[in-house]
Structure formats: C-alpha cells, structure tokens
C-alpha cells in the first residue's frame, strides 16, 4: 500500500519535473544571454576611458577568466576581469578594467546584496554624475597596491560600510595581481609587441603570401 502511494507521488513529481524541463529549454538560453550581455556591457563601460573597442577572452591555467582589450587599431590597451570579494552579507562582484601597467581604468559593481543604505552606497550615483562616487576614486591608481585607508592605503572607505569597501578594494587588487601573473605566462613570442590573435594571424598569413614567388 505504502509502495503504491510512494509510486504515485513519484509519478506526480516526474510529471511536474517534465513540465519544468520544457519551460527550462525556453528560459535557460534567455538567462544565459542576459548574463553575457550584461558582462559585455560592463566590460565596455569600464574600458571606455581608454578607447577600447574589442575584447578577446583568455583562460589562464588555474581557470582565471580575463579579457585582453584592444583599440580599433588592434593595439593591446589593457585587461578586464571579474573581481570577487566576500562582503558583509554577500559576495560582491566587480568588473575591473586595468591598463597594461595595471593601473585601474574603470570599475563596475555587477552584483552585491549588502546592507541597504550602507554597503549599497557602493553603487550610489550622485545627482548629475554617471558613475558611483565610491568607485570614481579608484581611477588611475595602481591596482596591485590598492587598500583602504584603514589598511594603510589611500582608498576612502564608505562610512559605516568598511567591510563592503574592503571587499571591493581587496578583490580588485587581488584580481589585478592574478591577471598580471597570468599575462606574464602568456604564450607571446619574445620581441614581438602584443597583438590581438586575429591581427597576428592576418599579418602571419600576409607575410607568408608575400614570400611566395
């Protein structure tokens, strides 16, 4: 008897799961597309000050995902990656853009669920401006030595939101160090300036075409 009830329950659960699976085929691609578009938008925004127009994805040996950023001539301008730091009540995600000397080009917080009115001030934009005031102070600073004033750095933390401020600052610094390390191990031939893969391929094929009689 119990077996029959159990089977009936499993049948109902299976039916429900089937229906959900159908809906999932519709919504999963939309969700993935949303996320991709949002990340791309963030990347463009943080590198806008340097005139970047193209990005190329790279994955380092340890799984770190970062993007090489190029201007319209194909010259390497900098790097973008996602920095993650444990905040007060959530993991804060910041899209961080650096130039080739690893100074901060721009930052954009893409996920946080910090304390309303305190940690959330990290995304607050003053009237008449276009970017959060907390993030503006990072621009141009050496990303590899970032720290809040309490930790002997020169970043002004948000009043009452030290933990959130530290999360952003430290994660951007750690991410810069990781990308710097990954870039140092990139398979770029010695003596050649860093070019985008496609541009290098074009030059390579053009050169080999020229060499033919």
């Amino acid at each position, binding site marked *: 008897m119990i077996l029959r009830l159990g089977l009936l329950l499993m049948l109902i*659960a299976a039916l429900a*799961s089937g229906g*959900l*699976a159908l*809906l*999932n085929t519709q919504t999963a691609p939309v969700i993935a597309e949303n996320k991709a578009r949002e990340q791309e938008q963030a990347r463009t925004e943080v590198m806008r000050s340097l005139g970047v127009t193209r990005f190329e994805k790279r994955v380092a040996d340890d799984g770190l995902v970062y993007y090489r950023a190029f201007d319209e001539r194909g010259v390497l301008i900098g790097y973008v990656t996602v920095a993650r730091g444990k905040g*007060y*009540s959530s993991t804060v995600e910041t899209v961080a853009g650096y130039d080739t000397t690893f100074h901060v080009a721009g930052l954009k917080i893409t996920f946080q669920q910090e*304390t309303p009115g305190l940690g959330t001030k990290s995304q607050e934009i003053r009237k008449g401006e276009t970017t959060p005031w907390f993030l503006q102070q990072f621009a141009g600073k050496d990303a590899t030595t970032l720290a809040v004033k309490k930790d002997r750095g020169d970043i002004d933390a948000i009043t009452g939101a030290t*933990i959130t401020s530290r999360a952003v600052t430290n994660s951007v610094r750690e991410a810069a160090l990781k990308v710097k390390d990954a870039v140092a191990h990139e398979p770029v031939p010695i003596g050649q300036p860093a070019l985008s893969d496609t541009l290098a391929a074009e030059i390579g094929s053009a050169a080999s075409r020229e060499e033919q009689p």
Partner: protein
Amino acid sequence: MDLSNLLVIVVGSILINNFVLARFLGICPYIGVSKKLSSAIGMGMAVIFVMTLASLASWLIYYYLLDPATSVWGVDLTFLRTIAFILVIASLVQFVEMVIQKLAPALYQALGIYLPLITTNCAVLGVAVLNIDESYTLIESLVNAASAGVGFTLALILMAGIRERLDTADIPKPLQGVPIAFLMAGLMAIAFLGFSGLSFG
C-alpha cells in the same frame, strides 16, 4: 581545512547575520513557539537537527544530481532545485516526527502542530539554498546550517524568556500578543545590529 573561515561562518550565522533577527527567516514558528521557554528549547533542538540534516542531503543532491559541472550525468537540472530541496525537507521532518514520537513523547506533545510546521520554516529551506548560492563546500554548508540553527534557537530562547515575564506586565490591549512580540523582536534586532562591527581582520 580552513578553520578561520569556518569560524567566520559560525559567528556570521549566529550573531552578525542572525537568521531570525537579520535575515528574516523562520519568523512564523518564531512568533508561535516563543511563548514558553521549555517548548522554545525543544523546538530549537529539533530545528538545528533538521537544518543540518537537510543541508547535508540537499548539498549532496545538488552537486551529485543537479549541477552539470559535478553531477553523475552532466545534464543541467538546476531548475529542479526548489522541488528537490523541499521534498527532502518534507521527508526529513516526517522522519524526525516519527523518531521524536517514539523516543520523547512528552516533547512530541509539547511541540504539537509546530513540529510538522518545521517543513514550512523558511530558515530550513533558506539555509539549504544559501549554501548553494554562496558556493560553500560540504563542511562549510554543515557548519553554516548548524550555526544558523543555533542562531535561530538563541533568538527563540531570548524571546521566550522575555515573553514569559511579559505575562505579568501591563501592556496596552491592542499590542497584546503578537504585536508586542514583533516590537520586542525589533528591539532585539537593534541590539544584534551591534554585532555588525565584528570583523576578523
């Protein structure tokens, strides 16, 4: 094993982000069971037990069956998370009910309807979902669940202690019962806000 990381989780879930007073999870039973100290303690123990077991089961199910990156069949079934978790919790509560009925019938009577209601305790499902959202390892999830349960029990005991005294206090009629409980929870929440200054360097 990163012990300091676990300590951060423990202090975080009990004090800094107390599940009841800061995260708003587990309010219904909180208001219902916090009238007497003895039933509050019993309920708290049951919740800690269910929360830890439920987090264990749901973590295993998520990473072995649902998450494409780690599951045995590599298909993305994460959309089944809610159904799977709540069914696990419902079965666990049934099981715990039977065990308590056999081993501690007095406690079973005292908890009454609130025992099966642990199924709808948002804190139990909440901690299971949080473990996944925060990408905790199995050990971290178990520690988080147990700490969350302890935090819930702590809030429950504090509230019950105060409410027992309130029986002899002169409260305006409209505020008697549930409203005054909420006002006191508010004051306790203010006190717990003080823990937000705790940091671990």
